[in-house]
């Protein structure tokens, strides 16, 4: 898949007292992700073209995609498509990149959500709300051993915008 025409829409950087290897493991394993990602399990076949899935606690697939870039433990890019009917057709694919860089004795983790077309602020409000919660919790888990319990609903403005575009959400 050619990703040259994708442009960053959301960038979130967080520094974590950990190692690149542990951050990589937290981002790519079901065991860790269940703790910091509201019970969701990340399952990823770590090779170019490998499957990427986020499974909800009930086992259903919430997000699916494939691995586009995989340089352990520095850079992972996947397509990250929420399984709502008509979403890809209307919004195009979503691309998520994790960059992991050593910063002295800590790690700088940068999340980049990219799209191949302009996406409205209403739609992007979902990612703008979700990523800080997920990554704040991941940081707490790696630093203190305890993830955060962050209860939240999808933003109303995103759900309304999706509905208007004819995208069905649960």
């Amino acid at each position: 898949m050619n990703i040259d025409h994708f442009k960053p829409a959301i960038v979130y950087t967080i520094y974590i007292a950990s190692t690149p290897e542990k951050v990589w493991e937290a981002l790519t394993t079901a065991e860790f992700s269940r703790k910091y990602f509201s019970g969701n399990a990340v399952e990823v076949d770590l090779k170019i073209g490998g499957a990427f899935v986020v499974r909800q606690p009930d086992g259903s697939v919430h997000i699916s995609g494939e691995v586009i870039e995989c340089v352990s433990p520095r850079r992972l890019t996947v397509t990250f498509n929420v399984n709502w009917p008509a979403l890809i057709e209307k919004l195009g694919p979503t691309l998520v990149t994790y960059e992991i860089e050593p910063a002295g004795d800590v790690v700088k983790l940068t999340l980049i959500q990219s799209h191949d077309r302009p996406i409205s602020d209403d739609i992007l409000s979902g990612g703008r709300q979700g990523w800080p919660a997920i990554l704040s919790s991941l940081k707490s888990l790696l630093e203190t051993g305890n993830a955060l319990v962050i209860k939240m609903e999808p933003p109303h403005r995103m759900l309304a915008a999706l509905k208007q575009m004819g995208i069905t959400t649960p």
Partner: protein
Amino acid sequence: MRKPEFVYVTYIETTAEKLWEALTSSEFSRRYWFNTELKTDWKVGSPFALVMDGTTTDVGEVLEFDRPRRLSYTFHHVLSEAARKERPTRVVFNLEPHGKLVKLTLTHEDFEDGSVILDGISKGWPAILSSLKSMLESGTALAIPPSALGIEGFA
């Protein structure tokens, strides 16, 4: 097109009071904010300054001090000639209880188009607020080398 601003949200396992203390006291800010002191009496309308390693980097005025919910001040970077020529920007911290956590939202806004400081503050705040979160949750702020931020002139 969104107007130029920088927004950063983080969730911290602490109380709003402790977070407020950390945002307003030099004793704490020195630990998580690259040895920066906050020089102000925090009265609305009073002068405000950030002093890093003894050098004043930013000056402003206290706009809001609504403990422990909302804090804001104007922010004028004074280390470079180009930054001094820009109008002051505005920094706003919102603290909201979220279950047993506190949701901290930083909004840095009112930049001129083509502002020379927007890139730097966009790289600075994530480091400062990540370190603040670590200090409050684990007791230890992060030792982030300034060069890791990628800000020209800050190393």
